[in-house]
């Protein structure tokens, strides 16, 4: 076998690394749905949904930070947050989400933490329910469902009564005290229609957050939902949420 000299070896190494980097960039690129919205009819082709793979989340909180920066969310409130579940061997459950996990997690002071049987992280955000309680109760019609099935708030119309905050069973809404109006996750509506993923999806290093068009049978999200077992939160309330959780544990509320 022909011996390669040092220079050739380094060259090969650089090419290989670059190849892997560029290749992985395409392989793991998150905006797999090509998007072009020019008219109202184009919007009808979309039904935005979200998948959360609880088995992948590592609780780094990058999504929470990305969301806060992208959407200018105040420090006290959260459009998205991550919960940590620690289930002890005797069945006791410890759940926490310090500062919504915006500073990730530190080891907690849970007594007998050595006795933890299993633990996992669960990202939460607005479920953009098909039958959303928040849009039902908004007295002025400021909370509404867009044509492409995203629950949004018209900030110029909202009176800040807080009825929607009460109605949301998931604690996803809050009154932005500075603006006096309700606020919540929009799936980064300003990004998704440019073909860009929501900030949280973009920031997730583990692809635990997946978004996409539920109406497109070829979309990544539709394929996942066709293959995996999943659940949604508080199904008994009939809100019909659109955030689908892979490996949803019964302790997750």
């Amino acid at each position, binding site marked *: 076998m022909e011996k390669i000299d040092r220079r050739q070896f380094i060259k090969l190494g650089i090419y290989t690394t670059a190849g892997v980097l560029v290749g992985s960039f395409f392989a793991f690129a998150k905006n797999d749905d090509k998007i072009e919205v020019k008219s109202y009819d184009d919007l009808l082709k979309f039904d935005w949904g979200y998948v959360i793979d609880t088995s992948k989340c590592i609780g780094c909180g990058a999504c929470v930070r990305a969301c806060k920066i992208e959407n200018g969310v105040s420090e*006290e*409130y*959260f459009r998205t*947050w991550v*919960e940590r579940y620690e289930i002890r061997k005797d*069945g*006791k*459950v*410890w*759940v*926490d*989400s310090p*500062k*919504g996990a915006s500073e990730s997690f530190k080891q907690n002071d*849970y007594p007998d933490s050595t006795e933890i049987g299993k633990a996992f992280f669960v990202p*939460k955000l607005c479920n953009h329910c098909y039958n959303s*309680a928040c*849009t*039902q*109760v*908004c*007295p*002025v*019609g*400021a909370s509404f469902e867009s044509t492409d099935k995203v629950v949004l708030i018209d900030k110029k*119309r*909202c*009176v*800040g*009564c*807080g*009825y929607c*905050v*009460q*109605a*949301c*069973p*998931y*604690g*996803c*809404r*809050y*009154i*932005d*005290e500075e*603006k*006096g*109006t*309700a606020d919540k996750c929009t799936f980064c509506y300003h990004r998704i229609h440019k073909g860009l993923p929501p900030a949280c999806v973009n920031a997730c290093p583990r692809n635990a957050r997946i978004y996409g068009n539920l109406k497109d049978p070829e979309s990544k999200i539709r394929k996942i939902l066709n293959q995996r077992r999943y659940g949604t939160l508080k199904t008994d*309330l009939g809100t019909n949420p659109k955030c689908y959780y892979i490996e949803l544990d019964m*302790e997750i*509320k």
Partner: protein
Amino acid sequence: MDTGQSFVFPNELHITWTVMIVLYPYITGMVAGAFIVSSFYHVFGMEKLKPIARYALVSSLAFLLFATVPLLNHLGKPDRALNIIVTPNFNSAMSGFGFIYMFYMLIVILEVWFSYRVDLIEKYNNSKGIIKTIYYVIILGNTYDNEITRKYDRRFVTVLAGFGIPVACVLHGYVGFLFGSIKANLWWSTPLMFIIFIFSAIVSGLAVLIFLYQFVHWKRKLKVNQDSLDLMAKWLWGFMIIAVVLELMEVLSIAYERTERWAILEQLISGKLKFSYVYMQIGLFSIVPFLMLTVTSLIKINIKLKNFLIWLSSGMLLMQVLLMRWNVVIGGQLVSKSMRGFTEYFPGYFNKEGIIVSFLIILIPFLLLRGFDKLFPFFEKKEKLDKVK
């Protein structure tokens, strides 16, 4: 599920509906209750209530004029408050608010006007200068006063009062419905809520009338109409029994069902609400007035003592209803929707929605009522003849 530790969703650290939303149903409760009492006379012809019918009606108006103040103070965007009428979303229970409120206001104002038309004409005739002009505007320039007009006035009042009863029930029952229909809230979500609200409204309406009636008569050294007072006290006794039993039955049915939510509500009742609900609302401010009113209603005792007990009971029941509003509105928000813990709430003293402002908001309708007495005298002149010498 084991809730060995308290967890709330990060957005639940601050509660959304503050003490202002406690005051709103409290004030509308008194509005609806006082109106219904005035209708007992106007519609059902309970002659014994005649001496307080007009005063009840004016009280209702005074409270009604201020009912929206706590709401406006609470809204994030009070300048957009009229959106609720301009762009209502009729899927929302709250969107009906503006219309029901305005309709009810119209009924109460018209009823007050017809009730006091004769008095206002008399005042117009006896006054001079700018005051005369003001009265002229209030009576809409109509100075006719004879048997026929009086007969029509009475007829209008009866019809308006008749319409007013269902509208008063709707106004307040609807507030209960706003809470009871929130499926996301474990403590509120019960179809009993609006019924409880209607009965507690009648209790607070009766209580505030009795309380003020006795207070005003004591202050002005007038003799109370014992028949009216006894009847109102008995009504108060009856309605408070129904209201409190309903409140307890609601909790009992949740407890007995033992669904998932009871696990956390049990902790709410025995923890965060132990003082304000168990000890205060049910213990001190329901059982004690119940016992006192039982005595005044069933046993013959010294009139002075009896009237004092009635007055004290009515004051305590006013507190009971306020506590009930607090325990419902605030209590419901203390429970996390994660069903794993509780949040904290203290309104603060000097905040925009704090304790000082709350006291002012409660106080102003009473001051307004005092002012109304000048314009719409509560009690018939004949009573003044009974002045204690």
